[in-house]
């Protein structure tokens, strides 16, 4: 039980990081905004607890993919904004391309017919 959970989380972690980078790459945003943006761009199919977003954000900040600054939100409250760094941009590009390669490969594999083997 425990192990399975952990595996799921690990699988999720990679994709969550990618989605966060993608969301922030669209413009600087605070945590809640990033969540909404991810839901929006992924068609709402991501089923995680909202709090799980923050460890990912802190990790990416620590890794130098994201920068933070405090600013004022649209409804005039103090909020922490995340900005993609150049390093984050490079990372996002890398991950995007390797993700598409993986998707292509899996897609091709799944389309295989008995006659082609």
């Amino acid at each position, binding site marked *: 039980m*425990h192990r399975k959970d952990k595996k799921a989380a690990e699988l999720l972690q990679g994709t969550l990081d990618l989605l966060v980078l993608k969301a922030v790459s669209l413009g600087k945003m*605070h*945590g*809640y905004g990033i*969540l909404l943006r991810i839901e929006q761009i992924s068609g709402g199919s991501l089923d995680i*607890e*909202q*709090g*799980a977003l*923050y*460890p*990912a954000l*802190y*990790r990416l*900040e*620590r890794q130098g993919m994201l920068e933070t600054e405090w600013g004022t*939100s649209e*409804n005039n*409250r*103090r*909020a*922490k904004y995340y900005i993609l760094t150049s390093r984050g941009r490079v990372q996002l590009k890398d991950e995007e391309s390797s993700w598409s390669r993986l998707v292509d490969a899996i897609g091709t594999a799944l389309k295989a017919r008995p006659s082609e083997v």
Partner: protein
Amino acid sequence: MLRFLQWRSLFRRNKFEGEMADEFAFHIQGRIDDLIRNGLSPQEAARRARLEFGGKERYREECRESHRLHWPDELGRNIRYSLRNIRKTPSFSLAAVASLALGIGVNTFVFSVFDSLVLRPLPIKEPARVAFVETASGMNAFSFPDYKEFRDRNKAFDGVAGYRISVMNFERGGEPSRMWCYLATGNYFDVLGVKPALGRFFHQADDVRPGASAYVVLSYESWQGRFGGDWSVAGKSVRINGRPYTVMGVTPQGFHGTETFYWPEVWIPMMMEPQVEVGNPWLDIRSTWNTMMLGRLRPGINRTQAAEDLNRIADDLARQYPREDKGLRLRLAELGFMGSNLRQPIEAFTGGVLLLASLVLLTACSNLAGLMLARLSDRQKELAIRVSIGASRLRIVGQLLTESLVLAILGGAAGCATAIAACKLLSGWHAPVDFPVLIVATPDWRLMAFAIAITIGTGLLFGLGPALRSARADVNPLMKGSSGVAIFRTRHRVALRDLLLVGQIAFCFVLVFGCILSLEGLQRAITLPLGFDPQNVATAAVDLGSAGYSEAQGMLFQQRLAERFRELPGITSAAYANSLPLSIDQSTTSVERADAEDKGGRRQEGHANYYEISPGLLETLRVPLLRGRDFNDHDNEHAPPVAIVNQTFARTVLGTDNPVGKLFRYGPQTPPIEVIGLVKDGKYVSLTEDSDPALFRCILQEYNPTSTFVVRSRSSAATVVSQLRKEIAALNPKLPVYGAGSLESMLGFAMFPMHAAAIALSAFGVLALVLTVTGIYGLVDYSVSRRTREFGIRMAVARKVSGCCA
């Protein structure tokens, strides 16, 4: 600094926590607002928002972990948990802390002695550029005329200073007392680059004409002790050997010249030598080698170049003064021990003891590793549960390592406290000799670094193995409800505990056998015949030269005092000499056969230990007289010069076993001396020396104002000493008495290295044995407890106990 770092990290942490709370609150508030906009009631919106966000505490912790801020928390938890565990198993903890305290304490103590004797640089300017000058054969002194040549003609040194350890009678107001000093040339303080704590130091210009520079510089300690730290002491007058001297200044605290173990009270300009060493002036005598030399190298000159430069001068001297300086070669040595002859054995000894001490610590470590492993087998259930509820292996290893480090730190702290206490004892210990020997072992940064490194190293050494092992353990059998024996099943044929056991026994063997062998060697050295019998002999010494006696007065005083001693009740004999074998004050002289040139021109030369003794001294000390006769009262200045020699002297200098009637002399210009007696070989300078030639002259023929009286009594020597003092005071109440006590305790100086070594070695041996026995017991106990089931089955099947014991 530490406080600042703590505050800074605390501040950063508070900021981090506050910002994280704000961020989470902002998120939840934003969600609530959105949900209300979507038509939910405020209460329902708040509930949903919190639910959707999930466990705040969990994510906070994950954020901290992502930000690497979690470890102070975890460390705190680990330490608290470790302390709880330590309290839970007091006997194990006590045993662990005690054996670590012993191991670390012994190492720290030995290291601090090593550090203060060998490693620590002297408190002088750029100590690396100052070197001691000795002859290539290891002799550490030169004649003063030769010193002046080296000082003035060298090109490699900024300055070459001459100095000598000496002693005089010091008087300030009341009673005179004996005081040890350095005689130092005027450039001494400038060459060393030391600045006075008070007043000024003498310089080259203050030390030109013999007898004209009656100045003293006080050591910091004697300024504090004898002058009560009087700030106006400079310019005050004191009396030395009855003459007035002016106090010039005070040396800085901690500076005590260049000999690590010697703590003189004053420095006196070298030109005062004839006034300090009354009756023995040698400043102009090229054949008396009493001046030690040290020099400060010019920048950019290395020691080889400097030695070459000095040897260039030595070659000139050898040509100019072949009789005194033939074959003179010089080399440079480290400061601190009057040349390398003393430094090498001290370094080797302390280094060897340090090695032994580290072996003791290794034994303690392997012992503790075994005990830790055994104890972990009791805790396997707890660990398995922690693993199964999600603790990472790293975390378990961290936890176990924290436990062993906490133990190590407790042990290290106790060990350091013990070591510092032992250092205090040692620093306050005055060797039972008339000589200011002090080994001041004060803790410094090097010692602290050593103690910390050794503590952490120890903790890792005994903790890492067991911790890694337990982290590799397989949880499943335990969770399935098995009794848990499987958790530490070894995967290799050679188990960690077997290695530990073998290692421990090996260490123990090395230590115990090493100790036994060394002790045996020491025993042999100690029981080797001294050449005299110190039992029931008391001594007391006076220096008649410093007290102002002329030769005639002095000789009369010596004889009268010896007579008074002989008349005391319970005294069987009394005599006197300038110095006794195995005391600190030893002299040598050059000797050659007087008929050497007649026999084919082959001169047999050598050095011999030299004593001036009164008639009856050999009998009082029970030195066996093998041939010939002892001195008598007729061997005085009017009689032809005679001497008694030992067996080695007879063999090596005179080339015969029966030297009685043979002639020898000190040098080609001196009159021949006839040998009238032969005594058995003895020990003269140290207990470990090989047999050296020794030569005894009659003090009636060769007067010496330094007189050590020896008295043999029927009862123990200690009771006689006060009577001796009384008799001396009856003849001259103002005469300082030194070296009063039993001869056996006087020998403490010669015996001290032996005793220290014997005590250290036995202590290490016993320590290692105790540690190993407890360690092996622990390991065997553990391995039996692991295999109880197997034994049960074996016994059930074989019905024999013997099979299990095998």
